[in-house]
């Protein structure tokens, strides 16, 4: 079937090119020496399937670059949140609607304080904890020493600056409290040095930071850091992609293997079901399922106390209903591919041998048929990841799927549209990350297909 492509372009044929391709020198016609004959006996060392696939993949420079991008994005999504001090749901009341690398007034004051010789150390409080920073005792540690202070009033949002100047008789903690209307009020609080970490449960321990971290991608209208939301969204996307493709892998491969292996009437009925699901317009059903599953899922999460249900409910209704739609609709492609593979493989002698030896059907499927379709399984699963991410972002963009305060790249894009004339960068970052992610995952998948299953190469 497959044709060898000529090296020259058929529409720009030059006689020289064709001649060059068919050029032989007299050396080509000399008879082989004894060593050459010897070397033909074992020309290549026997290479395992995986090693051969890895070699092919490595030779594909596009896929290697794409793989590097995927790794970088995975680091961005999973390690990034630990490197930046903002979380995806915190609302910084003083720092709303900031552009990339812009600082709010309070942050500028903190930065200034850092530049001041008197202030050795400044830190900002998480507004989340600061809103709960009521009257009471607090402690923080700095270079191994512990310091303690007490507050006599509640603070809303702002920056805590530790003035450790030795010249002053009393060490103070300056607190910039953000008051509504954009003003700040500075309060000084005296603190004492204590030897050990306080064991008193009433003392709240505050973590301190030595610099004001910039909002690299800016903040949104609610004062949330866009970069941390993008990281979180990328993490959600990757998780959904991987889990959804695993669901597809399990259901599709089992269904396809059973259908192909048993054949006959069973196969006929099973394949009619597949065709039916195939012909149903999937996106319409997915949208319906998103509507329908919302309430029952929420009820189920609220009523059940099984650990698995707890884990699922922490993911949220939106994500779980995406998984369910994948489990219901998207396994058919995988089932078809695996059925085709199994139909081909089951005529092989080793399957007959296994049957003669009395192996059960499930054993033949598990030990012989599925392992021999591993290339197809891996490739189809890999290519499923970007399509799952695609679907999730599509749903979130339309306002279904994942909803606030959780973030998803799709919902961030749709939020950004309302303010697109004023803050176009809010769209830019999630859109770029999402496109890079889907594009590079697709390219990696293509590379894997070429590497694991060279017959499919286009």
């Amino acid at each position: 079937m497959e044709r060898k492509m000529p090296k020259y372009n058929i529409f720009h044929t030059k006689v020289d090119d064709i001649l060059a391709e068919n050029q032989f020198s007299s050396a080509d016609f000399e008879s082989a020496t004894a060593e050459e004959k010897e070397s033909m006996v074992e020309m290549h060392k026997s290479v395992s399937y995986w090693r051969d696939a890895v070699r092919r993949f490595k030779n594909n420079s596009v896929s290697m670059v794409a793989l590097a991008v995927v790794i970088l994005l995975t680091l961005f999504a999973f390690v990034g949140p630990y490197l930046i001090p903002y979380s995806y749901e915190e609302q910084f009341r003083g720092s709303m609607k900031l552009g990339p690398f812009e600082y709010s007034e309070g942050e500028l004051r903190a930065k200034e304080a850092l530049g001041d010789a008197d202030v050795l150390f400044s830190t900002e409080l998480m507004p989340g904890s600061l809103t709960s920073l009521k009257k009471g005792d607090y402690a923080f540690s700095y270079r191994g020493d512990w310091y303690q202070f007490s507050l006599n009033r509640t603070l809303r949002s702002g920056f805590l600056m530790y003035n450790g100047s030795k010249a002053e008789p009393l060490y103070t903690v300056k607190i910039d409290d953000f008051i509504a209307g954009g003003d700040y009020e500075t309060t000084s609080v005296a603190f004492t040095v204590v030897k050990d970490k306080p064991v008193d449960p009433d003392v709240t321990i505050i973590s301190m930071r030595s610099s004001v971290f910039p909002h690299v991608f800016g903040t949104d209208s609610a004062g949330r850091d866009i970069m941390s939301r993008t990281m979180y969204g990328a993490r959600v996307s990757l998780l959904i992609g991987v889990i959804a493709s695993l669901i597809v892998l399990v259901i599709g491969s089992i269904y396809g293997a059973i259908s192909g292996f048993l054949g006959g009437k069973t196969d006929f009925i099973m394949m009619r079901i597949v065709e039916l699901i195939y012909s149903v317009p999937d996106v319409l059903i997915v949208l319906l399922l998103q509507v329908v599953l919302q309430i029952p899922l929420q009820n189920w999460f609220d009523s059940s106390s099984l650990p698995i249900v707890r884990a699922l409910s922490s993911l949220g209704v939106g994500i779980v209903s995406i998984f369910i739609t994948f489990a219901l609709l998207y396994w058919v492609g995988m089932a078809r591919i695996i059925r085709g593979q199994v139909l081909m493989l089951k005529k092989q002698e080793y399957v007959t041998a296994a049957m003669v030896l009395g192996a059960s059907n499930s054993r033949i499927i598990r030990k012989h048929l599925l392992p021999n379709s591993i290339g197809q399984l891996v490739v189809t699963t890999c290519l499923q990841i970007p399509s799952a991410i695609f679907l999730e972002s599509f749903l979130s963009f339309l306002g279904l799927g994942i909803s606030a305060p959780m973030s998803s790249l799709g919902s961030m894009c749709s939020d950004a549209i309302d303010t697109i004339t004023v803050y176009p960068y809010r769209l830019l970052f999630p859109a770029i990350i999402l496109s890079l992610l889907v594009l590079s995952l697709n390219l990696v998948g293509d590379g894997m297909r070429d590497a694991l299953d060279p017959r499919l190469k286009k």
Partner: protein
Amino acid sequence: MTSYILKRIGSALITLLIVAATTFFLMNAVPGSPFITEKSTPEMIARAEAKYGLDKPLVVQFVNYIKGYFVGDMGVSLKMQQDTSVAEIIFNQNKLALSSRIGAYALLLAVVLGIPFGCIAAYNRGNWIDGLLRVVTTIGVAIPGFVVATTLLVLFGVQLQWLPVRSGSMETASAFILPVFALSFYPSCYIAKLTRASMLDAINQDYIRTARAKGLKTGKVIFKHALRNSLIPVITYLGPLTAYIITGGFVVETTFSIPGLGKYFISSILNRDYPIIMGTTVVLAALIIIMNLLVDIAYKLVDPRISLSKGDV
């Protein structure tokens, strides 16, 4: 051939019935009555349910619902436009007309752009034009539709201000440019890739070499011999393309705030107006299924090599 067409129509009808049933029973599986609001009393809910026939057994409701389709009765809107018939909303309020206009333009543009670019890429195989087109089409099929739509919006609407931004009115022709282009970007890239691949496959066939050897002009070889055979995959793609245009339309209409059926459908989902959701789903599904049917039949007509007796492909 007739038996194949009949068989295909039969299976299309079954699919449609299944979509309608799935839609109906899924909507009814949602707990809680659509009439529950903060103020409503049980009596009020019961009265409203009786009015809309929601107090009858589910199967009776379903049969009534299906019967309704044959006389153009698709129920009435419960929330979005209270008491307006769904058929009226879908067909007579200019929503479907607007959406199908955008969709048809996009479909046309995708074919008109995709096939020539695919041919150009195949013709220039291996040189920089092919390379450039390959980069563009690879990116085009990989990035999500709403990214394309929003990027175009930012670039041409906000930054350059060449074209109107989300005005909501579709009176002028210029309002169509961005939505149609955004909607056709993915399919034109896909068609270009498809055409390039099948074109390359075709031009390495023996009959092309024969045509070249006979001394036919390049143009004639491409258009008369190679292109005609390489269009078959493009024809089979027209079915999925319709489905894409419809679902992509949701995104494009939301992005450009076009008052079409897609945007209305999404807001009916967000508002949980069940009769509208059901009606629109069935109408759109019917559109997709009919298109698939036509494509399947056209495919068999175009390519005599495909056996007609053996039903399945």
